[in-house]
């Protein structure tokens, strides 16, 4: 039976292993993601690995809403995993993609998501070389869940890890913070508001390549996704057994993001990003690294936002623009708009 890409819906047979599934895989996934390794048509991709240290990562994408200003679950599933590979100081090579589809999910939406995923993969130059599709009964999933895995090879001489921050090191963020989370909030049910803010979702591996060329001695790379910059820095402070001191005035935040957060009672430091990275480097590398980042299209708004200090309590604190000092804590639960 022909697939109805306009008003058709995912049916249980699309995951059943029969002709309907073969048709979905051929017409949709294989044609969108086409590359020699995938086109070979095996249950696995076979390739030669380059010499050196490899990184491997996996991430599940279960977002709601599926489409948001500046992206969708498809592009996010590519960018997120490419970035997780890149944050290992590595060049991403290949991705895999697993889809869990809910019975009744519109085929037109699925097509849109897959096209967006294919475009993100092509733009990043990181092909999706193997994949899997399952269909679950209506009510057993939320539209579509995507899991991607990625592998890559670490650049020569680079060694980044979350436990390598040292007192005196400098903390750099690659651009404005909070864009993704606020874009998602602006379309979330019950909270819709008009806004020009778009998600910053993008692959950062080219920026990382530039950074490790300029400063191969950089110590930590991390993308501040869920929990935002605050959660990420707290994790790094724990892992490295250090404290951190931020300068609020130095944080790059779009006025629209500040405004939306102020109105909703949120703190941009806790809002998710999908196209930004945090970097910790020795002080002598900082200026050179910052200049190189700013010269790169993905790091134009990069800024030094603080430094690593010795602190047995592993506190992340911030000098406020107002002139005080405060803790930047982990997020407790989910960040929620205030009551009054």
């Amino acid at each position: 039976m022909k697939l109805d890409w306009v008003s058709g819906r995912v049916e249980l047979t699309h995951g059943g292993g029969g002709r309907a599934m073969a048709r979905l895989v051929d017409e949709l996934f294989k044609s969108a993601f086409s590359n020699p390794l995938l086109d070979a048509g095996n249950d696995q991709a076979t390739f030669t690995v380059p010499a050196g240290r490899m990184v491997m990562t996996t991430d599940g994408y279960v977002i709601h809403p599926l489409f948001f200003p500046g992206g969708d679950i498809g592009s996010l599933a590519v960018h997120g995993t490419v970035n997780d590979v890149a944050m290992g100081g590595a060049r991403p090579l290949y991705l895999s993609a697993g889809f869990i589809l809910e019975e009744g999910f519109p085929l037109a939406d699925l097509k849109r998501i897959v096209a967006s995923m294919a475009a993100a993969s092509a733009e990043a130059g990181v092909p999706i070389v193997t994949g899997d599709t399952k269909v679950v009964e209506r009510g057993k999933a939320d539209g579509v869940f995507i899991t991607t895995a990625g592998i890559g090879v670490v650049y020569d001489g680079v060694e980044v890890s979350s436990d390598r921050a040292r007192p005196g090191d400098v903390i750099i963020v690659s651009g404005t913070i909070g864009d993704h989370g606020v874009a998602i909030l602006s379309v979330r049910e019950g909270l819709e508001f008009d806004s020009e803010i778009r998600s910053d979702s993008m692959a950062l591996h080219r920026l990382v390549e530039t950074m490790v060329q300029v400063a191969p001695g950089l110590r930590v790379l991390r993308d501040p996704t869920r929990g935002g910059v605050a959660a990420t820095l707290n994790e790094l402070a724990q892992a490295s057994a250090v404290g951190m001191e931020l300068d609020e005035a130095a944080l790059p935040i779009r006025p629209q993001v500040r405004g939306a957060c102020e109105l909703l009672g949120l703190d941009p430091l806790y809002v998710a990003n999908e196209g930004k990275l945090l970097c910790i480097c020795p002080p002598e590398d900082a200026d050179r690294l910052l200049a190189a980042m700013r010269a790169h299209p993905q790091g134009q708004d990069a800024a030094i936002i603080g430094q690593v200090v010795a602190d047995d309590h592993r506190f992340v604190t911030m000098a406020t623009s107002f002139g005080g000092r405060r803790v930047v804590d982990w997020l407790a639960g989910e960040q929620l708009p205030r009551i009054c």
Partner: protein
Amino acid sequence: MKYVDEYRDGARAREIAAVIGAEVQPGRRYNIMDFCGGHTHSIARFGLEDLLPPSVRLIHGPGCPVCVLPTGRIDSAIELARRPDVILCSYGDMLRVPGSGRDSLLKAKADGAAVRIVYSTLDALKVARQNPDKTVVFFAIGFETTTPPSALALLQAHAEGLENFALFCNHVMTPPAMRAILTSEERVPLEGVIGPGHVSVITGSQVYQPFAEQWQLPIVISGFEPLDLLQAILMLVRQVNNGRAEVENQYARALQQDGNPKARQVIEQVFTLRPSFEWRGFGALPDSALSIRPEFAAFDAEARFALPYRSVPDHKACACAEIVRGLKRPQDCRIFGTACTPDHPVGSCMVSSEGACAAHWAYGRFRDQQQGAAQ
């Protein structure tokens, strides 16, 4: 950010702080209660206490709606939520507040109870329209600020004939709490009060006049930005120095003396005084809260589900009861930061971002370590 940054100007703040420092008189103490949770949050977030002279002491008050709601009321909400015929809509903060036996709305939700986080009462109405086969109960909490939206939602449901909508009303009022603090036997010494800004936008500032007169207490209604608060503190210091006890309005850009008569009229139309209501920390206070008028009983969750109220004592080690009355500081509680943290709150003051404990934990606790190290 226009109209916000102006009120967060650090240089201007230090100027006002310097004036406060110059005007406080030696040998005098200035114990000032910041009544409202919004003020507590701002003071902690901007580190205002660092700017003030030692004789000016800020004492956090009871004006955090999540904090003063007693465990028994949380239990009732959980009981409602666990009914299969009910969808409970709540502001997000309430989900983590512990009920009896380590239960919470969040736990009930994980167990399969229909609990929805909403951002406004209008969202709860929407849920009711979308689920005609369920009773949709809005967990209404808060002071005079959040009362008008609850009243409007009920009137809207009434007008639409939305019979599956109900309010679980827990609205409380500010003046009785202030009276309870001032008449309490173990009263915290107070030279002045920073009066609630948003509440007063509804009630007007004149409701505080009797307090200023009867207790010779300077009161300044304040906005929520750091410069607002510093200016309010300066105004209080000046009242104390001059021996005045007046209600002054620092928040002139939002607050008219008469408040918002229209909002009060809507409250009056829907709600009536509850003879008695239990508050965390204060116990049962007469005429301190609102209930739904009998003519709207069909929209009253308590009437509809015949909810009995059971008072539950607080956790033995929890000092929330003293903290909301200003008798203790968060760091005086022996489980602060150990058994009680925002991830595992034992008391309500650790839950809401406006709670004194949560604010001190989130923004100020590094000072305890510094003081500990200095000793």
